[in-house]
C-alpha cells in the first residue's frame, strides 16, 4: 500500500468504459475473459459485477478499456441504473440459442436509453454462441432487423472459438472514441446532430 501511495501519478492513456449487459448465462463473462485473457471458461458461475481493465492498441493509439461485466440479474433497479450510468458504450449480448435472452435485449436497450438519456449511445447488439449454430433459435435476420430498428450494428460472436470477439470490443471502442472526439469539438446540440449523421453512415439502411 505504501508503495502504491508513493508512486508518482503517470499520464494514463484514454479510458473507454464498456459495459456488458444481457440475460444470465448468455456468455458475458465468457466474452470478457476471452477478450482479456484469451481463455474460454466452460464452467458457468453467475457473475455479480466484475470489472477489468486492459491497455490495448486501437488503430495505433494506446487506449485503456474498462469492462464492467454486470450480473444478468440485479434486484435493485437503482443499482442497475448506477451500473449503466458509468458506461460509455454497451455490448448488449444475447445467446442465439435462447430466444428469451434475445427478447430481453429490448428491455436492456430501453433501460440504457432511459438512464443515459441518449439515443446515440455507442451500442452493439451481439449474438453470442455462434458455434452452436445447430441449436440456433434466433435467426440472423431477426437479430439484424432489431439492430436496424435501433440503428446499431449487429455482430455474431463465439466466446468459445473467439470468433468476432475482438471485433465487437474494438468496434465499440472506435464508436466511443469517435463519440468523444465529437463531443470535444462541439459541446452543444450540434454535436448530437453530427452524431446522428455519422450513425446513419455506420448502419446501412
Amino acid at each position, binding site marked *: *500500500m505504501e508503495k502504491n501511495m508513493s508512486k508518482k501519478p503517470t499520464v494514463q492513456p484514454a479510458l473507454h468504459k464498456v459495459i456488458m449487459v444481457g440475460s444470465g448465462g448468455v456468455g458475458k463473462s465468457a466474452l470478457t475473459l476471452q477478450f482479456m485473457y484469451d481463455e474460454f471458461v466452460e464452467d458457468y458461475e453467475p457473475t455479480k459485477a466484475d*470489472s477489468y481493465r486492459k491497455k490495448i492498441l486501437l488503430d495505433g493509439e494506446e487506449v485503456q478499456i474498462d469492462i464492467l461485466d454486470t450480473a444478468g440479474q440485479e434486484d435493485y433497479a*437503482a443499482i442497475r*441504473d*448506477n*451500473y449503466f450510468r*458509468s458506461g460509455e458504450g454497451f455490448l448488449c449480448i444475447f445467446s442465439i440459442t435462447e430466444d428469451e435472452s434475445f427478447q430481453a435485449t429490448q428491455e436492456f436497450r430501453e433501460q440504457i436509453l432511459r438512464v443515459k438519456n441518449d439515443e446515440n449511445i455507442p451500442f452493439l447488439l451481439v449474438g453470442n454462441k455462434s458455434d452452436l449454430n445447430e441449436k440456433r433459435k434466433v435467426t440472423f435476420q431477426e437479430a439484424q432487423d432489431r439492430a436496424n430498428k435501433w440503428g446499431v450494428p449487429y455482430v455474431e460472436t463465439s466466446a468459445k472459438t473467439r470468433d468476432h470477439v475482438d471485433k465487437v470490443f474494438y468496434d465499440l471502442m472506435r464508436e466511443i472514441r469517435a463519440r468523444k472526439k465529437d463531443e470535444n469539438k462541439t459541446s452543444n446540440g450540434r454535436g448530437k446532430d453530427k452524431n446522428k449523421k455519422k450513425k446513419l453512415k455506420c448502419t446501412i439502411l
Partner: protein
Amino acid sequence: MDVPKEPNFHLLSAPEFVPEKYVRTISHNYVGGSELKNLKKRIQALSDETNNSLKKNVYQNYVQFIDTGKEISHLESEMYQLSHLLSEQKSLLSALSATSILEDRTQVNFERNPKLDEHEIEEENKLKLATILEKVEGCKEIVEANDRVFIFEGDLLEIDATENTAIKFVHMYLFNDGLMVTNRNSNSRGLMRYAFESLYELSSLAVVNVRDLGNIKHAFKLLIFPDTRVFQCSSNASKKEWLDKIDQAKKLRLATEQQKKDQTVEKPSPVRAVSMDLSASKPEEVAVVHPEWLLDIPDELDVCVAQRQFEDAVNYLRKAQNYICKFNAKHSAPDAVILNIQEKVELKQNNLIDILMNELEVNPKKSFQGGLRATRTAVRLLNDLGRSTQCCDLFLKLCSTMLKNQAKKLKRETSTITYIRYFTSATFTNMCYMIEEFLRAFPDLPYCVSAYVAWAHGHLTIITNHFWTQVFVTKATLSTITECVQLIRAQCERLCEYGIDFRYKLDGQLRKFINTALNEHRDKFIDSIKLRANEDKWIPMNFKTKGALTRCLQEHEKMGLKLDSYVSGDVWLQLTSSNIAFTKLFLVFLDNCLNLQTTELLEPINDSLCSVFEAQVAYNKQALTFQPEQNLFVLKNIGFLLLVLVELTQRKYKESIGFECEPLNKLVNENSALLKDLASRNTKTKYSSDFL
C-alpha cells in the same frame, strides 16, 4: 547342467522359472518312463493343490469383498446422515446470524432463536454504535437513526479511478442499510479518530469486484453516479469479506423490506437514510421485496433434488408457483425478481421432471426388483407436475420391459404345455397387476387408460407371436395345441375383470394358426386312414383273450360307445381293426375340435370332421366291392360308423355347440342306400349273420 529339482510351488512360481528349460532338464535326467510318470503325477498333484488353494483364496476374497461392500454402504449412510446434520447446523447458523442482524424495534416477524441471544445481540449493537459515535465525528444522526445495525468495519485505501494512484486511507462502516465512509481525522488527537464523509444507501449502491486493474490488486469499486470510487483492501481475503458482507446485507435488506411491505402496505417506503451523495438523485422506484424463502427456492430445489427428496421438491415448486400466481394477479406490472425466480423455478422444474423421467426410463443396468411399486412416487410426482402423458408412456415401456424380462426368466420346460401354462399365467398375472398399478397411478385420466388399452393390445400381439412359435411352429400334436389354446384363453379372460375383453382379439389372432393346424392334422389323419385301410384284412377283430376284449369294451364305453352288440364268441368283435382305430382317433380329434371351436372356426372344423369321416367310409365302401365274400360284415362296419359313431358325434357336437353338425348328417344321408341295404339284409339273414 542343473540338477532337476523336486517340483514344488516355490520352484514353479519363481520369477526365473522357464518351463522349456525345466522340461529339458527333466528329460535329460530321467531315463525311465515310470520315473517320468511319477514326476507327472507329482506335478498333477501340485496343480490340483494350487487349484484348490486358488479356489479357497477366491472364496475368501469374495467374502472379504462382500464385507467391504457392506461396510462401504454402511459408511455411505453414515456420511449421508452427517451431511444432513451439517446442513441442519448450517441452516441453524444462518438463521442465527439472520436474527442477530435484524434487530428488533422494527417489529419484524422473524422466526427467531432464543430470546436471550436477541437481547445480548441488541446490547452488543448498542455498544458498538456508541463506540462509533465516539470515534467518528459528525455521524450523530446516522448512528442514532432508528433501526440501524452495525455489521462490519475496516480500513481501506482509496484509489483514483482513472490514474490508478492512491488517494487516502479511509475507514468504512457497513450497516444493515448503508455503507459509511469516514476519513482519518488529522485535526483531532482525541477520541474522534475519523470524520464522517458520506453514507451510501445499499439499495442503490452498485458494488463492482475489480478483477483486473493493472497493478492494483484486491480492489473493489463503488459506482455512485456520477462518481466511481475504487477501494483497495489489504488482501484478497479481506476484499472477499467486504464483498460478501455487502452482498449479504443487501439480500437481508431486500427480505426485510418485503416483510415491512407485507405488514404495512399503505405506508410509504421505509425510513430513508441520509445520503449526501444521493440527495440529488431522484427517488428510486420502490423495489417490491419478496419473502426470503422465495428467493431461496431455487437453492432449496437443488438441495432436494440432490438428496432425492423429490416430494419436498415438488412441494417447494407448488409453493413458489402459488406465490408467483398470487403475486401476478395482484400486480399488473412484471417484477424483475419474480420473473427471475419464475424462470429459475421453471428451469428447476424441468430439471426435476427430467430426473423423474430418468427414474422411470428403462435402463439395462437398473434392476426391476421393486417392480412397478417402486415407480409409484415418481409417477405420482410427474402426474402432479402435469406430465401424465409422457409418464404414462414411460410407465408402459417399463411394463413391456418387465414382461419381456419375465418371459426370458421362465425356464424352457420340456413339455410345451407346462411351459405355456407358466408363460400365460405369468404374463397375464403381470398384465392384471400392471393394470391395477396403472389405474392406481393414473386415476381419472381417460386418455391414459386408452393408452393402456392400446399398449395391452399391442402386447397381446407379442404374446400371441411368442405363443405361435412355442406351440404351432414346433408342430405339436393337436391335443397339445388344444390344451395350450384353452390355457391362453382362460388366462385372457382374467383381463375381463378390469373391463378389458381381448378374447375376440385373441381368437382372431389365433384363428389363422388354428386353421392351419387343423388342416395339417386332417391331412395326416386321412393319410393314416389310408395306411390302415390298406393293411386291414376286413375281418372281425380277434382279441385272443377274453380279458383283452373286455378291456376294449370298457375303453369304448368310457368314450361313450356301447360295442356289446358287436361281440361274437368269447374273443371276437364284429368290427375291423381299422374302424376300431379310427373310432378312437376320431373321438379324440372331435374332442380337440370342439375345445378349439369358436364361431369363426366352425366351418373348418366341420370340414375337417367330414373329410376324415368321409375318407374312412370311402375305404369301407371300397372293401365292399373288393371283398364281396365279406359283404355283410363290411356293411355292418359301415353301419357302425354311420349310425353309432355319428350318433355319438352329433350328441357331443350338440352339447358343445348347440346344434348338430349338418354336413355330417348330409354324409349319412348320401349313404342311406347302404344303410337300407344293411337293414334289409339284417332282417333276412338275422341268423346267418350270427354265425359269422
